[in-house]
């Protein structure tokens, strides 16, 4: 497999490099990378600004929050603008296509909602600081890099930027024991899984001689590689570990409940939506392009992983009394549905992944925002029972929460319904009949635990937990309304997203 390329004599090496690698980024390159540039610059600026503002407590959270929102808005516009310049950037490190743009917009949108839902939270925990917002921005930079990466180096670095920032955010309230524990677990296990991913990258590099996705794909598709398929398979297996861990697919889902439970609620909202969507995006891109030619090797495992993920998530969620933990298991279950679409490995499957992740991000962030609002200082009220009577005490909050729960269940007219519909349609198109049947059965089981929340909210007498409940703050209120509106739009007029998703899943060829 390794060609015997003759290497130039040292004397010529530099001259050769000067000519071959004479690379100056063009203006278009910068435009394609503009969203990341905007966010990085502003994140750095925040670090300076934090120093300037010092401990001036009044309104600091507002200043940073608004600035972050403005930055993300600018980055969002930059994404749209960059979409007009499709193609490779920076010597093929990045690829700007519809798929990348879709996920860039998604993760930036998730960031905005997460920031909106943290105003009140940071204030009541006395933890308003520019670092929080800078970390969110940097994490989004990492996610944007991931979803547009065309190179395993970029995938790896983007993943690390996103993850390391999230590790810190998970432990942001450092005096809280649960935060510490979440951060430590997430950090140690995350780095552990990343080592597997890296080992896999090393193997695919050794086997194919490249780390570029398209080159690897071409290598696997065109050359007679019969004798080293086992090498490629090993590489794929090791990389699978890394990605499956990040998307919390079974059997690598174990970290998620502990970490989601322990992290501050707005951070959980953020990391269960943004980094997860980005990880799925890169997972799909790597396995559908680079490892696309050996799909029959990894597809059976995705099949079983999807089933296992759904079953574990749904059945474990049945037993939970802590609502953050319940939502954590539910997000595992939803990862399982997405895995079903990946197992379908066709174009509809990819657009189903995109659609579902958008719907999932909206409803998930909405649900966690409700938890952020409800939990009170120190996250005292996080049990399902504490929600008793919310329906009468705060009808609007409860109604919006109900929309998210119904969307989780997959009731028509919500995004969750169409998400599931497309996923199972894609699976059936790919002849995955049993997986679809079992998946649908799973979603029938899942109805039970979401329903329990609804019942508690609407049909039980308010308890003492209602006494100290503050009215909905503006930030969370905006988050909830925006997510609910998005969920309903996806449910009532899915064509808006779907058309785009279908056209941009064309990278599969």
């Amino acid at each position: 497999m390794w060609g015997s390329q003759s290497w130039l004599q040292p004397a010529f090496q530099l001259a050769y490099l000067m000519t071959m690698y004479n690379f100056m980024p063009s203006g278009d390159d910068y435009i394609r990378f503009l969203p990341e540039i905007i966010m990085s610059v502003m994140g750095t600026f925040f670090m300076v600004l934090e120093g300037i503002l010092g401990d001036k407590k009044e309104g600091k959270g507002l200043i940073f929050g608004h600035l972050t929102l403005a930055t993300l808005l600018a980055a969002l516009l930059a994404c749209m603008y960059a979409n007009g310049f499709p193609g490779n950037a920076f010597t093929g490190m990045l690829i700007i296509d519809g798929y990348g743009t879709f996920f860039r917009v998604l993760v930036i949108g998730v960031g905005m909602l997460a920031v909106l839902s943290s105003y009140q939270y940071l204030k009541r925990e006395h933890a308003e600081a520019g670092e929080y917002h800078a970390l969110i921005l940097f994490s989004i930079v990492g996610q944007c890099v991931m979803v547009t990466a065309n190179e395993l180096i970029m995938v790896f670095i983007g993943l690390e930027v996103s993850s390391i920032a999230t590790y810190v955010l998970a432990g942001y309230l450092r005096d809280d024991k649960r935060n510490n524990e979440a951060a430590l677990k997430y950090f140690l296990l995350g780095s552990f899984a990343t080592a597997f991913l890296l080992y896999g990258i090393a193997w695919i590099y050794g086997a194919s001689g490249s780390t570029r996705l398209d080159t690897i794909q071409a290598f696997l598709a065109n050359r007679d590689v019969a004798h080293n398929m086992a090498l490629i398979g090993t590489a794929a297996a090791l990389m699978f570990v890394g990605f499956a861990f990040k998307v919390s697919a079974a059997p690598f889902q174990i970290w998620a409940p502990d970490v989601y439970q322990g992290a501050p609620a707005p951070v959980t909202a953020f990391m269960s939506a943004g980094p997860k969507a980005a990880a799925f995006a890169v997972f799909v891109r790597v396995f559908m392009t680079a490892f696309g030619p050996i799909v029959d090797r990894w597809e059976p495992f995705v099949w079983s992983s999807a089933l296992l993920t759904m079953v574990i998530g749904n059945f474990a969620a049945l037993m939970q009394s802590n609502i953050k933990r319940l939502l954590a298991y539910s997000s595992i279950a939803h990862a399982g549905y997405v895995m079903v679409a990946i197992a379908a490995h066709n174009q509809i499957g990819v657009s189903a992944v995109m659609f579902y992740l958008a719907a999932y991000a909206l409803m998930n962030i909405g649900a966690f925002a409700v938890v952020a609002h409800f939990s009170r200082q120190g996250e005292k009220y996080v049990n399902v029972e504490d929600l008793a009577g919310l329906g009468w005490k705060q009808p609007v909050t409860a109604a919006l929460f109900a929309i998210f729960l119904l969307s989780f269940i997959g009731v028509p007219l919500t995004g969750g319904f169409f998400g599931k519909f497309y996923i199972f349609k894609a699976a059936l198109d790919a002849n995955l009949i049993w997986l679809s049947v079992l998946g649908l059965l799973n979603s029938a089981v899942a109805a039970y635990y979401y329903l329990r929340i609804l019942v508690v909210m609407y049909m039980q007498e308010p308890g003492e937990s209602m006494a100290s409940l503050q009215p909905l703050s503006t930030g969370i209120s905006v988050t909830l309304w925006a997510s609910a509106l998005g969920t309903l739009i996806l449910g009532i007029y899915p064509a808006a997203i779907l058309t785009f998703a279908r056209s941009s899943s064309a990278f599969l060829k």
Partner: protein
Amino acid sequence: MTFNSVPLSWYLMLSAILFVLGIAGFLYRRNVITVFMSIELMLNAVNLSFVTFSYQLKQVDGHIFSFFVMVVAAAEAAVGLAIILTVFKNRQSLRIDDVSSMKY
């Protein structure tokens, strides 16, 4: 085989052994810091693979990849040790089995 050259597979085998020893350290050691050092060992093993493949391919790209791995390891070390510090402050313990209050 003469003493003047070593089969490529020996290097890769060494890398695999070091990687597994890293995993073993993660599974068996009970001190958080040692567990973290085991991850560093795994990353080192990966780097050896990169450099070995780079030699075989006569490309410098593998070197660059391992360079990036080092950078990431440095960043991870800073953050990881900071996290370990906060955990220690709150629990006065570095035993990894003590950090298990959230379960089921």
